[in-house]
């Protein structure tokens, strides 16, 4: 059989979880990461990252709305996914994920965004004309109360929502790791460390994404970039990445030392079929590369322009690296046989339901949504800073 080396069981030759399933943890990871960055400002009062606060919330929302789409496209019958809510099976991790998702979307993210934007929404509802006015009117939910004490209450409630939101974001993405980590038949996935590794890689990619989006939006708006903010975000990127990398290395060292019956097979796979995507792209290009760049920026002082370029480079490499990590987890976990005697190959189709084209479209969609959200709820607050 083409692409098969050694022995595969018949049901292992073709991969069941495709490129779309790679996107799913990648996208939810960006959601969780962006939200956790936003929470930093809110809960831990890191003033410096404030310029990215609203941006991070909108990023999280844009990606969260797209997160279930790869799954639905993969399964084929999107209308059936609703049945998961109607008659959930309590032993199904995926069914429960539906509720985690819904909780996070409605009770955490939408609520926090609403509370944060209420003053703007009310202002737009009063000043805009035409259709937009009605949209904002609807978004006020019928209350235009902006008295100082009501805003104070909003702030307090928003704080509580964020505090609930952090564990929720952890849950959202830890859960994705849990789904893989609990596939006990697959030694590549089955480790209790999986949710934790997923979580930290999620934070890393989310922070990198917000950093890139921040710089790009500022460039497009021809507004000066707040370097204090960028430095701080980059610092957090560095810290979370160090933790993420340590965890992944811990996993690796543990596996190598434990060397259970799957090890030879997995080791062989990493040295052959996954060499490019795992060792070259994920570890060297996507992890050690950005870590080195970020470390240098922490140790030495550079001019603003150079710093900005270094941060952007590091963030883009990070995004590539985390994508490669998702790829290696999802695809890598299906390339070897449960008999440990053979390997198969995965060839991405192009214009097919689970091909490259829909995957690219799904990766562009969050940015379109992000653009629409930014138009609807402008995150820029410079005018406030100057007013104050």
């Amino acid at each position, binding site marked *: 059989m083409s692409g098969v080396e050694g022995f595969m069981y018949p049901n292992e030759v073709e991969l069941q979880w495709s490129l779309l399933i790679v996107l799913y943890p990648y996208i939810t990871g960006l959601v969780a990461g962006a939200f956790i960055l936003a929470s930093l400002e809110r809960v831990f009062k890191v003033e410096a990252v404030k310029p990215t606060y609203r941006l991070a919330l909108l990023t999280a929302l844009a990606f969260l709305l797209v997160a279930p789409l790869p799954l639905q496209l993969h399964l084929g019958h999107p209308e059936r996914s609703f049945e998961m809510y*109607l008659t959930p*099976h309590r032993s199904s991790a995926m069914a429960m994920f539906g509720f985690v998702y819904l909780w996070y979307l409605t009770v955490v993210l939408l609520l926090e965004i609403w509370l944060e934007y209420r003053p703007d929404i009310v202002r737009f509802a009063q000043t805009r004309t035409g259709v937009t006015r009605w949209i904002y009117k609807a978004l006020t939910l019928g209350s235009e109360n902006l*008295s100082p004490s*009501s805003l104070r209450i909003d702030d307090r409630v928003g704080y509580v929502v964020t505090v609930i939101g952090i564990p929720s974001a952890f849950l959202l993405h830890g859960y994705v790791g849990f789904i893989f980590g609990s596939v006990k038949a697959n030694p590549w996935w089955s480790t209790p460390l999986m949710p934790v590794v997923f979580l930290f890689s999620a934070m890393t990619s989310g922070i990198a994404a917000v950093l890139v989006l921040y710089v790009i939006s500022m460039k497009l708006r021809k507004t000066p970039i707040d370097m204090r903010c960028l430095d701080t975000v980059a610092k957090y990127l560095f810290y979370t990445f160090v933790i993420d990398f340590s965890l992944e290395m811990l996993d690796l060292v543990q596996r190598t030392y434990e060397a259970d019956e799957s090890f030879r097979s997995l080791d062989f796979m990493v040295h052959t079929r996954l060499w490019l995507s795992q060792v070259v792209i994920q570890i060297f290009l996507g992890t050690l590369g950005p870590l080195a760049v970020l470390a240098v920026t922490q140790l030495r002082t550079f001019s603003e322009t150079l710093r900005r370029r270094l941060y952007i480079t590091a963030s883009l490499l990070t995004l590539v690296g985390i994508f490669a990590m998702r790829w290696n987890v999802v695809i890598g976990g299906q390339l070897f046989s449960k008999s440990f*005697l053979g390997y198969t190959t995965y060839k991405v189709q192009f214009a097919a339901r689970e091909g490259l084209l829909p995957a690219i479209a799904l990766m562009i969609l969050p940015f379109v949504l992000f653009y629409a959200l930014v138009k609807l709820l402008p995150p820029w607050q410079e005018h406030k800073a100057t007013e104050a």
Partner: protein
Amino acid sequence: MNRFLRDSGHLARPALVLVAGLAVFLVVRGAVIPKNFGKYGHYRPAALDLIRQHPAAFAGQDQCLACHDEQAKTRASGKHAHVACEACHGPQAPHAADFVNVKPALPDVAALCARCHENDAAKPKNFPQVVTAEHSGGVVCNTCHQPHNPHL
């Protein structure tokens, strides 16, 4: 206290939206979940009837034996005695039900035999297996072996 209530009144609105959404969900759920859901397990009992209506694809070899006496005898005398007819011929229920109009296509021997006999480290050692390319030299298997009784 009154002012506090007034200034936090707007918070009741998203809560109301949420509760309304939940209520709609519960109503829809009550309306669309089929009766007796879960009676036998986590599915609609009516699904069983739907599945029963699917036409069977396999006839089972008892049926084949009733008509194909010759092949049955040949097979019984050889090593393929315990290989079911439809393992090689594929599902043939339509043919068994209407042999006049439905004539099965014969198996593609070049692919068929290798499916079970291609040499593979994972198969039990005593299972007859060959490296087909070397063993037959590209000649189709049934020039030498008779499929129903493969012994030469």
